């Protein structure tokens, strides 16, 4: 469990923050910004509140913060959750109202008519149905029920039927409450750390339906935020799908065209990424760095790894990275009905392809997402297939994985960025933030996937290069883009790795007390994103010409 701030540190910081934000924002009694504070880690809430207040510098509004956690989330997802700390932070950042939305939903599900008024909106009585499409509602209910049941998919058992009904009832009330807020308030924006599941996702759906932009803060780096704009949304498509295309368009038009200017930076990011200093290496981001620098070192490591895994070092190896099987199902465009279906179908395909090795790796944190033994069950079907190995990812070092893997398969995992950076090709069967940036093969249908997979295997066996040098450059530039171009360092949030104990709140206090706020990168970046309807925060202005861009980035170059 991450360390927590002491109450005295939080109290002291809240006093400082309260004064700071009072002087640095503009209020308006008629308009509100809705802010989510439902993640246990205070760094999420801190980012959401900072983004909201940065927006209040140009869009006068009041903050309305919804928080809380229900019993099921506390059992399945959270290890700790302090409503008191969340509300304290919300109030310190100037919230007009901060309330426990889970308590409201609990009462409504239980049929209790407890009067609750938030920003003048009564949430305790009769509320109309949400206008969300039945398909989208069902998708959110299903994904949430899988997460709560910790399974790859629901079956017809009584237990799963009950879970689904329970989640559906809560989802219906969440949808009504969010609908009431967006219907009755003049909402400038919604700021949320998540866009999935019923508690988070139904707010996002409601916002976009009511023409309210969503600012989607990320738990990594300094300040990373995606902008989801209502007029960009496409009916029937998940919000992340639109984002995928916007990221790709921006990357192509603003970043890739400056690749010569950014080459040194991209190479440095690729070099630093070997240490997996932070995201996007969600997969195995901890642990020693990759220490392979050339083909000879890889060959040595490959023989070592092959001996440990029992695979044949002379054959190409396909590494299949299992996902956390109940994690945000249906969150983007995917070829298979669920993450588990992709894994099972790939394993079955592998059975007949003995001309290559297959390494099936389970997610390091699967225990948080699967309680059904999914991975072991699949592995059991192939115990007699010596060309197929099923292992926990943590049983192999990152060097071994890099040395063995000649082709990487994933639906949407960050391995599809990490491995192409090293010239190792990746096939995705789903969209992700980088999937349309030109360095992976993305398959939109099952048939397309197996066709591409067989073509890749044929190429590997023939000794063909399945990635071009340009694709490697793109993968490296995207790493830089994610870690630098779209990551805004600000003293008002501090780097994610600072943690959330007293140190964080001491640093924030110091920043608020001793640094004048104008031109804080967080303020400048939020202002730019909002005014331009950009898909994400940017560290610099990407509309500048090459020379001014180089100045803004302060790139290393002779003057």
């Amino acid at each position, binding site marked *: 469990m991450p360390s927590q701030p002491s109450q005295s540190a939080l109290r002291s910081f809240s006093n400082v923050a309260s004064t700071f934000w009072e002087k640095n924002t503009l209020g308006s009694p008629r308009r509100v910004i809705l802010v989510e504070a439902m993640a246990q880690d205070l760094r999420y809430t801190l980012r959401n509140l900072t983004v909201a207040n940065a927006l209040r510098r140009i869009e006068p509004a009041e903050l309305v913060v919804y928080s809380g956690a229900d019993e099921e989330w506390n059992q399945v997802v959270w290890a700790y959750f302090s409503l008191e700390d969340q509300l304290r932070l919300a109030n310190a950042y100037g919230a007009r109202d901060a309330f426990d939305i889970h308590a409201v939903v609990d009462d409504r599900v239980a049929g209790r008519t407890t009067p609750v008024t938030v920003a003048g909106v009564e949430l305790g009585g009769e509320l109309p149905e949400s206008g969300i499409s039945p398909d989208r509602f069902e998708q959110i209910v299903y994904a949430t029920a899988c997460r709560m049941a910790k399974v790859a998919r629901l079956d017809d058992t009584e237990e799963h039927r009950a879970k689904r009904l329970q989640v559906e009832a809560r989802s219906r009330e969440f949808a009504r409450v969010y609908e009431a807020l967006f219907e009755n308030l003049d909402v400038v924006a919604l700021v949320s750390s998540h866009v999935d599941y019923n508690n988070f996702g139904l707010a996002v759906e409601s916002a976009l339906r009511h023409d309210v932009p969503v600012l989607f803060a990320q738990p990594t780096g300094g300040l990373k935020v995606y902008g989801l704009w209502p007029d960009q949304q496409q009916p029937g498509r998940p919000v992340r799908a639109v984002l995928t295309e916007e990221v790709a368009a921006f990357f192509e038009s603003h970043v890739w065209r400056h690749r010569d200017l950014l080459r040194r930076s991209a190479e440095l990011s690729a070099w630093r990424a070997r240490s997996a200093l932070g995201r996007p290496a969600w997969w195995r981001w901890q642990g020693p760095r990759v220490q392979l620098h050339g083909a000879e070192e890889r060959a040595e490591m490959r*023989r070592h790894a092959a001996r440990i895994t029992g695979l044949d070092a002379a054959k190409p190896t396909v590494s299949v990275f299992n996902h956390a099987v109940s994690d945000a199902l249906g969150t983007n465009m995917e070829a298979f009905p669920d993450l588990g279906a992709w894994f099972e179908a790939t394993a079955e395909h592998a059975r007949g392809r003995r001309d290559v090795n297959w390494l099936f790796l389970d997610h390091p944190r699967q225990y948080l997402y699967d309680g059904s033994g999914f991975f072991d069950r699949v592995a059991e079907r192939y115990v007699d297939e010596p060309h197929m190995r099923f292992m926990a990812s943590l049983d192999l*070092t990152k060097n071994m994985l890099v040395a063995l893997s000649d082709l990487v398969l994933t639906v949407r995992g960050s391995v599809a960025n990490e491995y192409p950076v*090293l010239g190792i090709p990746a096939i995705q069967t789903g969209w992700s933030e980088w999937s349309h940036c030109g360095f992976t093969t993305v398959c939109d249908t099952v048939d397309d996937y197996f066709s591409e997979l067989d073509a890749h295997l044929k190429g590997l066996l023939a000794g063909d290069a399945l990635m071009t040098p340009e694709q490697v450059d793109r993968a490296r530039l995207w790493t830089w883009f994610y870690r630098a171009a779209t990551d805004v360092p600000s003293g008002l949030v501090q780097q994610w790795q600072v943690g959330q104990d007293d140190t964080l709140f001491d640093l924030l206090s110091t920043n608020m007390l001793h640094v004048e706020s104008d031109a804080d990168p967080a303020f400048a970046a939020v202002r730019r994103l909002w005014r331009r309807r950009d898909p994400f925060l940017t560290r610099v202005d990407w509309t500048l010409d090459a020379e001014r861009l180089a100045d803004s980035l302060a790139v290393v170059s002779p003057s």
Partner: protein
Amino acid sequence: MTYHLESLHLGTDFDQPPAVLPVPGATRNGDALALLDGAGRGGRFVARAAVGPALVGLRVDAPRDVPLRVALTLGVDDAAIGAWARARALEGDDHLREERRPRVVVVGVNGVPRAGVVLQRLAGDGSSSKQRAVLVLEPGDLPNGDLLTVSLEQPGGLPGWAAEDLLEDGLAGVSLDRVKVDVHEEPLRPSLSTGRAQQPQQTPFPASGMAVVNPASLGGDLRLRVWPRLRQEQARPRSLPFRAVSRLRRGTPSAPAAPEPAVEVDVHSLVDGSTTTLPADRHGDGTFTVRLAAASVPALVRPRLLTEPDGVLTGWSARVRRLT
């Protein structure tokens, strides 16, 4: 042969060219490493192992067609104990009783065990206990040209007598303090690692009674000679136990007459994982010998006294010779 991925692009513009170790030469820090896995690089040691197998590679500047003699100095110190305790998630004083148990580290080349050491922190060892593993690499052992790679691993499939006595996850924290590489000229004699200072003629065993027998470069079966070290049970002047041992070695029976001592040696091959028990031949000088097949070494051995000793068995001494 290993598969080569045509599109591979591991290097970046920021990679430093790997250091090259001249031969003869030695390194005591991790800067010289071209390859490292399952271990951390050090400033005052070459590498420190984690829980799993470690792989260490150096670029060497040596003629391509000559065998190389590689001497690795491995050690356990306070940091090794701390690293081991962290790897085992032990806190406070949980580990105090465990940490002094012996560890066995197997040094391999291309997946084949070539040598092993017993490492054990003993009273009087000072800040670190060290053992040396020496191996000879033929040109064919370096398939990637000048890249010299060795693995450090824990032995697998241990028999009960070894598993019970050895420290679990004992590789964790072991330091590789020095790597010395020479052109191999003189034949390498077989050797013993017992956790105590290594001596050519007679190497003592600690109370654990385990040792690793390492092979000769010329191959051939080995003769392992062991003899018990005894302490008389009654309080005696300090020199007496040594007299008792001397009597035993000379075959002089002590009074009152003790039964004829008999010894067996348990042998666990670190090469193929087989375990056998060999009855030892008794000699007139009070020593016992067993023959170890060349194919079984390096091997973990444990001598056992089958008869009631004339005194308290405090350990063993041993030496190993190549049978010609």
